[in-house]
């Protein structure tokens, strides 16, 4: 079934195509050394890799903040140049890792309105989008609060509402669970689920292998500025060389399941459980 879904996804339209992208912050060290990636409509992609592997640089590149001399980015088949960079920024949204370095306005409402205002929408449209994004993230009561009187989890929600209000086609989350408590992390996962149901294309960079295993349909592994694996989670996490090279760990669910199968405790029907619910079903 998973394979079928994957094939189904393969046939979906490609939104973003990245070809041989290279980027260097300074002359000495290359942060990206030739990256190729296709992002299709409705995909859930987990981006993994150790710190400094080039994930964040890659995100800033496909959002158009950083512009590379070498390499090409196509948005819906159209090659992006300096002039069309704003198309990229409109359609690819990034939720930054640190909410405090994203929030600039002094009330939640004006913060969320910043993106839509830059899209040069009419006042009423901006208001509608802000209302929608705030209710999506359960922030309507916080509308007039200043960000410095919000908790960490609330700030994170504001930073997500910021991006939702811009209606991008691809939403990128840069290590979203890094500073969240378990309750807020669960909240985030619910939001991600909701977005996926609505057919949004989501890309998440994370170090949490268990999360990537249960949530993603596709795992992209960065190592030293290059993509070393790009496949379904099971295939990536079963590949010992990739795991060792990228400093990853195997998901606990996968280990437990394989151990139980070796001992003959579960049926061996080649289907792997992704979460505890599916696991219960297997036994």
């Amino acid at each position, binding site marked *: 079934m998973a394979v079928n879904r994957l094939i189904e996804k393969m046939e979906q339209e490609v939104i973003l195509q990245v070809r041989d992208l290279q980027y260097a912050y300074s002359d000495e060290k290359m942060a990206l050394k030739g990256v190729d990636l296709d992002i299709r409509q409705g995909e859930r992609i987990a981006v993994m890799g150790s710190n400094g592997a080039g994930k964040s640089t890659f995100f800033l590149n496909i959002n158009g903040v950083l512009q590379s001399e070498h390499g090409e980015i196509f948005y819906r088949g159209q090659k992006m140049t300096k002039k069309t960079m704003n198309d990229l920024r409109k359609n690819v949204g*990034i939720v930054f890792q640190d909410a405090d370095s994203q929030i600039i306005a002094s009330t939640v409402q004006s913060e969320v309105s910043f*993106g839509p205002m830059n899209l040069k929408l009419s006042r009423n449209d901006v208001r509608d989008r802000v209302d929608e994004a705030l209710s999506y993230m359960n922030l309507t009561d916080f509308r007039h609060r*200043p*960000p410095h009187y919000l908790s960490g989890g*609330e700030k994170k929600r504001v930073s997500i509402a910021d991006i939702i209000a811009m209606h991008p086609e691809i939403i990128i989350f840069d290590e979203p669970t890094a500073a969240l408590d378990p309750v807020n992390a669960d909240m985030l996962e619910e939001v991600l689920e909701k977005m996926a149901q609505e057919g949004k294309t989501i890309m998440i960079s994370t170090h949490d292998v268990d999360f990537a295993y249960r949530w993603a349909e596709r795992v992209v592994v960065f190592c030293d500025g290059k993509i070393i694996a790009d496949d379904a989670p099971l295939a990536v996490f079963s590949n010992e060389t990739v795991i060792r090279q990228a400093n990853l760990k195997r998901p606990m669910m996968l280990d437990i399941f394989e151990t139980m199968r070796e001992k003959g405790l579960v049926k061996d029907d080649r289907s792997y459980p992704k979460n505890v619910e599916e696991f219960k079903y297997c036994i």
Partner: protein
Amino acid sequence: MERIVQILLITAAVLMIIQGFLHRRKHEKDHSHSSFGHKHDGSVFSIDFYAYASRLRTWSPKYKAVFSMVCLLCCIICDNIYVSCAVILLMAYITVVMGGLPFRRYLSLMTIPLVFLFFGCVAIAIGFSGSPSGDFNLHLGFFYVYTSKESLWETLELITKALGAVSSMYMLTLSTPASEIIAVLRGIHMPKLLVELMNMIYRYIFLLMDTQCRMKNAAVSRLGYCDFKTSCVSFGQIASNLLVVSLKKGNAYYHALEARCYDGELRFLEEEKTVSAMQTAGALLSVSLLLCIWRLTV
């Protein structure tokens, strides 16, 4: 005539204090300011906090700005002690009773300008001379410190005038969050550069304070403040680190701005708050009251 105005002003002051006190008692029972997550210490934070907690926040910031400016101008133009006293009382009434700021907090905030005023006015009230002069004098060895009834009265007039002007501004700042004041400034076509700088500085003050607080805690936990010399070294290191962190953060901010289509101008959706007929009537009534007091006592 003057007598009547004096009596009226004193009665108003007494009534106001009583009402403010009663209001506070009532409020302590149903404590309503718990809606904010946390509160910072220090006066900058508390003014900001009170502005957000004020009941006058729903009023239009433009209305509040215009009203407080008119009262301030009344104070200065009329140059009359009774008008000044009336403005002080009126503003205190609006801020404390209508806005719901605890009276004691208001007094403690008022002491800041009062201290400056007091020291400033001492220089005006007293004079030095070699021979005894004025209505009151004090012999201090080689010279006399003296003052007269007129100069004392003049000083009092000056203090009330300044205090009236300050309390008008307090009314505005204690009921209007900085972002709304900035929006008003944008509305009167203040240069964009200044307005945007104000917006950003306001936001970053809190971030900087937060970062500094965390760095200091980290230093304290490692005995960085155990004696005076170490404290000085730690303070210097934190200050230089803060600069480096700010530069780095500045870069991160710029990326985050660009990612949301920033094109060199900060634009936000601003709330349009309407002015009710009652508010207009109240403002007109107050200003005409001030003018009446002025006419009666000139």
